[in-house]
């Protein structure tokens, strides 16, 4: 019984992990960390996780649990509202 429970939990955990999507966005105009604070705020409000800003490579990356909710249009709007442009959006599971 315990063995079956452990297998079930492992299966459910792995399914949850597989559903998460890692998103990398190449951002235009992101040259100042003071001015870029709005980016982390905006993406936190959207419910994304593990938000990282890499100024050297012009990248904002985060993890999305529900890809249907955080579409490319939503991502673009969040960055435009923060004052930036979008060069490209890349996703991986």
């Amino acid at each position, binding site marked *: 019984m315990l063995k079956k429970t452990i297998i079930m939990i492992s299966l459910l955990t792995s399914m949850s992990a597989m559903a998460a999507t890692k998103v990398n966005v190449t951002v*235009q105009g992101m*040259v100042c*960390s*003071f001015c*870029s604070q*709005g980016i982390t705020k905006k993406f936190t409000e959207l419910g994304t996780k593990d938000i*990282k800003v890499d100024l050297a490579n012009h990248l904002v990356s985060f993890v999305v649990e529900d890809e249907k909710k955080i579409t490319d249009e939503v991502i673009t709007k969040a960055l435009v509202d923060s004052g930036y442009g979008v060069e490209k959006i890349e996703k991986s599971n």
Partner: protein
Amino acid sequence: MELDVPSKFLSLFVIVLMSYSNNLMAHTVSFKGAHALNFSNSDEMSMWTYNYSRTPKNSLGANYYRFDLAGKSERFYFLETNFLLKRWNELSSQGNLYLSLGQGVSETKTQYHSDVAIEADWETRKYYTAFKTQGILNHKDSSKNIYYTKYRVGFAPYLAEFDQINTWIILETKYVNKMKEEFSITPFVRLFYQNFLMEIGISNKGTSEFNFMVHI
């Protein structure tokens, strides 16, 4: 905004120090929903501004100015609207052009004034330049208008990442008509971390300059 303990102490520290600060070039329009506070104060001038960015291209604000002109202190209170006229977002740089329009009164004689300013800036992670020209215009007597122009150029001695303390060296030239000495030159050291920014400088007149800004 939830502040951790070090940030709370930093906030208190800079609020105390804001009374000694001078002449920061404000981010007149910031990210949507942002509140921006800028404080400047010295023997010659005070500029305290608050802006709320209702959109990425427009903010509303309130400003307080004090100028010590020929031994007489003039104080002004304005309500402002600020526009981001144009932004150039490139992969490694950003340029901005702003217009500010305000209406207000002077404290002495309660005369109506307009406040008009144009600002432009361009920056990369390494270099920065900014220009501002402003007129505080007396509705009844144009000979009492105050004109203020400032130009800045700066560089970062090292490139800091998003979660590190950033350092800049900036040189500013400033002109204010009706001041006893109209021109001044001030080298600054600028430091910023997360959403706090401060600058320290000493002008060629020997006056200390300390600027502070926070985005919330």
